[in-house]
Every structure is written in structure tokens, then in C-alpha cells.
């Protein structure tokens, strides 16, 4: 089991807190090719996908102050930005976004909580790896590729602490759902 906070999350924190360009370059090297893969699976051509990757990664730089490692690993936060951008493009209107939750600016990072979320993410990845190819394919299709059907064919109350623990609960449930899918 992972013992320390992932380097991706540390890079994103360095971007957020120090506006660290080298850390941004590392994030770009890691995530830009993955975002591009997702966009191309979603039907964008190579050149367009590259332009959208630029938009997404620049949004990562500009919106880094919204990143909260207690609530999302870097991959989840970047996934959200990329998926919403993809929705904007496919539907030709902005994806509806919930209001942001503002954390008190003086909140101290809680390394233990960040690590616990990342460990839960690692377990979720392990559960994904245990699926059969067809199940993996279906889930990837839903989360990475096809947006709502016809568009694609046309185109071609609680305190924050509680939210954070609820996210892990939700992950635990998702992991169990995935585990239940596993053939005996």
C-alpha cells in the first residue's frame, strides 16, 4: 500500500501554492497524454484533441487554487476539468457546474487525510484491474468515451470534514460494486 502522497498531487500542490513551472511541466508530461487519449476516444481528431489538451492544462494552471487534495487526487480533479471541457464541446453549451465549496483559506493540510484518500484510490484501481476485459471496456466507455448518444452521432449542510470522509465512503462503495462484478 502506498505510504506517501503521490508525486502528481505534490506537483499540483506546488503549482497551486508556489506557482511552480517545473512542477507544471511534470504534471503536463504525465497528464497531457492521458487527457489526449481520453479526448480522442471521445471522438476528437488528433489536432483538435491537442488544442483541447492545451486548454485543459492551462485551466489546471489557472484554477489550481480550487484544488483540494483532501477531496480529490490530482487525477480526479484533472479528469473533472477535461470531462467538462469535452461536454462543453460536444453539446456546444457549457456543462452545468455546481457551486464551488469554499474552504477557509487558513485550513492546514492534513497529510494523513490526503494519504487516506490516495490509498482508497489505489484500492479502487486494484479493483478495476480485477475486472474482466468486457467490464473494463463498459466502464471506460461510460467515463472516458461516449458522451450522450445522439450528440456524438450528430458531431460525428455537512461540514467539510464530513464531506471528505463521505468521499472515501463513496469510494469504498464503488470499489465494492466493482469487486462484486468480478466473476467468481
Amino acid at each position, binding site marked *: 500500500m502506498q505510504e506517501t502522497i503521490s508525486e502528481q498531487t505534490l506537483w499540483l500542490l506546488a503549482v497551486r501554492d508556489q506557482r511552480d513551472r517545473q512542477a507544471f511541466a511534470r504534471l503536463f508530461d504525465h497528464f497531457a497524454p492521458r487527457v*489526449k487519449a481520453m479526448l480522442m476516444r471521445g471522438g476528437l481528431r488528433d489536432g483538435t484533441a491537442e488544442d483541447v489538451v492545451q486548454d485543459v492544462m492551462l485551466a489546471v494552471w489557472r484554477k489550481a487554487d480550487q484544488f483540494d487534495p483532501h477531496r480529490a487526487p490530482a487525477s480526479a480533479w484533472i479528469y473533472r476539468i477535461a470531462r467538462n471541457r469535452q461536454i462543453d464541446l460536444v453539446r456546444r453549451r457549457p456543462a452545468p457546474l455546481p457551486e464551488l465549496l469554499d474552504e477557509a483559506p487558513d485550513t492546514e493540510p492534513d497529510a494523513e487525510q490526503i494519504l487516506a484518500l490516495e490509498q482508497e484510490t489505489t484500492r479502487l484501481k486494484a479493483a478495476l484491474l480485477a475486472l474482466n476485459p468486457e467490464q473494463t471496456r463498459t466502464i471506460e466507455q461510460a*467515463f472516458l468515451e461516449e458522451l*450522450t448518444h445522439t450528440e456524438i452521432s450528430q458531431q460525428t449542510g455537512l461540514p467539510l470534514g464530513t464531506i471528505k470522509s463521505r468521499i472515501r465512503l463513496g469510494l469504498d462503495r464503488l470499489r465494492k460494486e466493482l469487486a462484486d462484478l468480478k466473476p467468481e
Partner: protein
Amino acid sequence: MTVISHHIAEKLIAAHVAGQLPHVFSVVVAAHISVCDECRARAEAAEVLGGALMDSVGPVSLSSGALGRALAALDDEVPEPAPITRSGIFPAPVMQAMGGKPPAWRMLGGGVRQQILAADGEGSLRLLYIPPGMAVPEHGHRGLELTMVLQGSFSDSEGRFAAGDVEVAGGELDHQPIAGPEGPCICLAATDAPLRFHALLPRLLQPLFRI
């Protein structure tokens, strides 16, 4: 923040995060998440799954110079449009659907008012204003319907729905919501175009969420 007792099913939240919900339903989900920490946590958990999947796909190389382009653009001034924010009882995603303007009601009779915010091939989105004690008008609909209360309350065979609550109704539910006596009930209702959503969602998400 009021206590919310009727939430949105996890599978719908996951479908929203994955971009699988028609726009009009996503407006309701985003509005509910704006006031419901419970469902926000569910959405963020689904994003972790999305991120894990994105992290595991085979990467596709970028053209040479892509990183240089990005680095060179970091300091560019980008004029950001002023974000649309909550106004009174209307959460930000609803204000966005309203074009940032206050409601422009059309009288339907019996004191009931409505404003259609979106109506197209993928469904419709409307605001409804129901005087106290009046029945919510039936719109002869057989598909999926998400109704979020923004002010006041309504009650039907499924229970009482107050501000922040969402009722998820399928075609089989023959409900007749009545606005509560405490004051006018204002709600946001999304309905799908017939035969659209149901045919689509199970195929994509059934294995994961066992609809």
C-alpha cells in the same frame, strides 16, 4: 442550509459526472449538488473513479513543442467572464440556465406559473410556481423526471419534498404532487424526451450500477 431528505441516486450522480446525462438533467443534478454535501461527496467519489480510469489508459503522445506552447501561455491574460452566481433561491446552475436573469413567468391558470428554460430533442427544463395547496400540473409524460424544490414544498405518494429535495420519478409513478400550505412552491423540473434516456443509460452503466 436546510436538511435534505430526498437525494439523487448514486447511479444518476455517476452518470452526471461521466457526462452521460442529458443536459437538462445535469442542470438539476448540479443544482442539487450545490446545496447537498452528501451528493457532492458522491459526485467527487465518481470523479476519483473517472480519474483512475483516465490515469490508467494508454497515453497518446503529443506533438513536439506541446509543453513549450503551454509553458509560453501560462502568463497570458485570459479575460474570464464573470461567473454566474446563486441569486436568492436559485442556485448558480439554475441561474446559468436562466441566462442570469430573474424568472419570466407565464401564467398557466389557477395561479400556476411556469417558465421553460430549455426544450429540445434531449428533454425539457422548466421552472414551476405552484400556489399553496394547488396541484402541480400534469404534463402527460412517461419518461424520467427529476424535480428539485427551490422554495416551499410539495407532497405526493412518495412523501414530502422541501427546499433542496429532489424527486426522481419514472414513467410508472402516478403521482399527483400538491404544494404545501406554507407558501408558494417553486421547483425546477427536468423531463426527458420520450424513449431517449432509458434506452441509453442502462446499456452504459447497467453493469456497474445494476439498474
